[in-house]
């Protein structure tokens, strides 16, 4: 068996150039590699065929793992599609297969034996590379999801004991729940006295959203922190009144500037214009 493997590898290496040329031709025809130059294509094709040959030679997949790890990151960064990744290997697999059939066409028994060795290896290499690529992409998606969730409740310290919380977009139940949790945890950790919730970025409000905001304000109050609301748009204000939502006991200001001023006053701080000389 070792002999066949050795023989196969040698045959592949001898015909490397022809294999590569054929691969490039098929890939270019498929239209999947439009953005790549001839040189880049050559490099990629060679890397792929080297990987298969090395795996064939060694009989294990250490080389494929190493190649996949490096390639996956790069491919995700370059926003390559699953199509592009897998077809590159599949085309190469077919070319190799065709060569094998040509070399051993006179001896059917040996051809079968060779294919039995070659095919599982080629299949596995494609598998490993595709899994690595998808894993890397899943990781990226997860990372981005986390970032979006964190971004949705940005707590910015304006001054000692004054923190700004600008809300943007739509406040659905998931986000609202996360809002309450992160605000209260933040209060618990930092003992901030006043939080200015700026809702100028919230286009529309419904009963549920208003309820979530009020819930956050009440819970914060119980912990000893005042939340004031700024930037209520006319539409939002009208909705709140129409829905008869009780905003009593909630300090509201029209602009963020007024909110900051209120917070400064509350903490006994004073803002003044610097005197001009």
């Amino acid at each position, binding site marked *: 068996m070792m002999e066949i493997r050795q023989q196969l590898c040698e045959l592949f290496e001898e015909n490397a150039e022809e294999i590569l040329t054929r691969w490039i031709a098929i890939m270019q025809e498929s239209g999947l590699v439009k953005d790549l130059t001839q040189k880049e294509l050559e490099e990629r094709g060679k890397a792929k065929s080297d990987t298969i040959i090395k795996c064939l030679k060694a009989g294990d997949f250490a080389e494929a793992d190493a190649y996949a790890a490096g390639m996956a990151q790069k491919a995700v960064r370059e926003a390559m599609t699953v199509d592009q990744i897998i077809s590159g290997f599949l085309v190469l697999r077919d070319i190799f297969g065709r060569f094998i059939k040509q070399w051993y066409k006179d001896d059917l028994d040996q051809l079968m034996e060779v294919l039995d060795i070659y095919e599982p290896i080629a299949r596995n290499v494609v598998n490993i590379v595709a899994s690595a690529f998808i894993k890397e992409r899943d990781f990226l998606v997860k990372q981005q999801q986390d970032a979006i969730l964190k971004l949705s409740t940005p707590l910015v310290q304006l001054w000692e004991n004054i923190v700004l919380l600008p809300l943007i977009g739509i406040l659905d139940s998931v986000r609202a729940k996360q809002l309450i*949790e992160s605000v209260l945890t933040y209060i618990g950790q930092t003992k901030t006295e006043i939080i200015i919730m700026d809702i100028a970025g919230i286009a529309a409000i419904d009963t549920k959203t208003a309820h979530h905001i009020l819930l956050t304000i009440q*819970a914060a109050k*119980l*912990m*000893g922190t005042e939340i004031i609301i700024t930037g209520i748009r006319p539409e939002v204000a009208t909705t709140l009144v129409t829905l008869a939502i009780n905003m009593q006991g909630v300090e509201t200001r029209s602009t963020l500037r007024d909110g900051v001023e209120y917070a400064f006053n509350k903490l006994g701080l004073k803002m003044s214009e610097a005197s001009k000389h």
Partner: protein
Amino acid sequence: MENSSIPILRLGNYLISSPQIAIHDKIAVQYKDEVLQKIVALKAKGLILDISAIDVVDSFLVRVISEIASSANLMGCPTVVTGMSPAVAITLTEMDLSLSGVFTALDIEKSLKILREKEGRHA
């Protein structure tokens, strides 16, 4: 009647109490009596309830705290509840229980500040 064994400490004109044990209904009622008695006995001008060690509350305990505060207030002794954990705060608001007539503060220092302001003195 047995003692609730929750310490109530005096600091100047104020009383500070910080329960460190789980408060059952029976203890809660005893505790309320003790606090109110102590306010009279020491002529306290303010009460600080530090509940930072309490991580579970039920509606009864909230009512007791609310009652302590309202009664103390009537006796000229404003009450500040302090150190409420995020979990407790969420539970209370979700159960729609409000601590009416109670001041809340982030820590004991800020509680003292509130009481001093109430008394018309500056910290």
